[in-house]
């Protein structure tokens, strides 16, 4: 049986070139066994077009760099097998994030801004002692922290969200989930009122319309639906008590 010929249509645009215009460019290549889109893109860059820009680091769905719109859906290129796709594939960069060029976007600046705005670090007045043993934590709490902490910040949830697409300041599922991680952490001494100040608004939990594209798009299945609802309920109660 001969291998399929793939037609890969890629969004091409370099915003740094003053005369460049957005366009779609088609590449044809032969499908290989076990081929991921990450492999296909590297093959295109090595054999067909060295100017093609896209991001990747780990190839193992850990770094979150290679997220892109694959036939309209936000997915990780390294985790997407070409055999699960039709032979005509359309690739676009993630929306919302700043375009670097072609399929490459700058998620870093967006997430850095998110960390600063949500103060995504453990707030404590406890003096750090590098010699002391870490405080013990029960397994249930540790798992409750670990679940949202699994987020690889690939940006798929943000890209899939209509609200994030039309409201620049909305922190998206990644942001709300990030804050949820600190809410369950006993080491973080912030009060509910302080958390309310951070996410109890339209840019945070109350800006979510509940379309759940985030939950359906997360490549590592962080339970965003329940995380978002939990934060919303918690913040509503906190707000009413203020």
């Amino acid at each position, binding site marked *: 049986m001969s291998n399929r010929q793939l037609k890969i249509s890629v969004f091409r645009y370099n915003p740094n070139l003053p005369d460049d215009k957005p366009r779609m460019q088609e590449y044809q290549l032969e499908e290989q066994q076990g081929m991921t889109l990450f492999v296909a893109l590297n093959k295109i860059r090595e054999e067909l077009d060295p100017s093609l820009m896209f991001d990747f680091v780990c190839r193992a769905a850990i770094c979150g760099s290679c997220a892109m719109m694959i036939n309209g859906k936000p997915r990780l290129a390294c985790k997407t097998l070409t055999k699960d796709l039709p032979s005509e594939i359309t690739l676009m960069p993630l929306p919302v994030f700043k375009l670097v060029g072609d399929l490459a976007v700058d998620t870093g600046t967006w997430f850095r801004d998110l960390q600063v705005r949500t103060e995504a670090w453990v707030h404590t007045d406890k003096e750090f002692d590098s010699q002391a043993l870490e405080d013990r934590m029960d397994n249930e709490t540790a798992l409750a922290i670990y679940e949202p902490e699994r987020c690889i910040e690939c940006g798929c949830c943000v890209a899939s969200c209509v609200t994030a*697409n039309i409201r620049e300041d909305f922190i998206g599922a990644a942001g709300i989930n990030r804050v949820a991680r600190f809410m369950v952490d006993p080491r973080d001494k912030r009060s509910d009122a302080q958390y309310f100040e951070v996410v109890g608004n339209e840019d945070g939990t109350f*800006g979510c319309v509940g379309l759940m*594209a985030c939950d359906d798009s997360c490549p590592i299945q962080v339970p965003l639906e329940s995380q978002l609802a939990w934060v919303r309920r918690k913040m509503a109660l906190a707000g*009413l008590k203020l």
Partner: protein
Amino acid sequence: MESAKTLQKALIRANPKTDLYVDLAEAATGISLVAFLWIHMLFVGTILFGKQIFDLLAESLDKYYLAHIGIPAVIVIFLVHIFVAGRRAPWRLSDMQTTWRHARMIAHTDTWIWVGQVVTALIIVIMGSIHVWSVMYEWPITAAKSALRVDSGYLWFYVLLLLAGEYHAGFGLYRICVKWGLISNRRTAGWVLKVITVAIVAIGLGALYMFKKFGGAL
């Protein structure tokens, strides 16, 4: 939290609970309107058991002052809901373009359902207002008057309003359940609400059929 960078942001921060109240108002008015709509449709559905029962119920609405309190309350809740839920819709042209393009691109069911919620909202605002006006104008409600109205060209008006209303109510309640986590699984919530919606639409269509039949015989 980062400090407010503009006057407007600083002033918004001065009332930090506004967004919470508006969000709660959206859910509260939404749930109230769904409850009203479903009860309303069950009341209208009494026509399936005959004109006498329908008229008896319509009379009791007046007799026990249910209409006097209920109608103004529903109108106020309706207006508040337009205001607080309407803020979610993409009103700027560029937002509409982005929403439409995005919904087409990601081909995601729940996102399309929401686009449908925005469209049905517009239908309900216009047709619901006409409906309230035309019923109030001929107050009190009787089976004969309703039958005449349905028979005099309002049939398709009501079919469309029924479908738009029940779609918006069913998926609106689904959305509230999902956002607040009222039901643990959104597939279950969707399934339950679809069954209820289909039942209510069936009652509505049955009632319209009866009105059309009575209207033709008048």
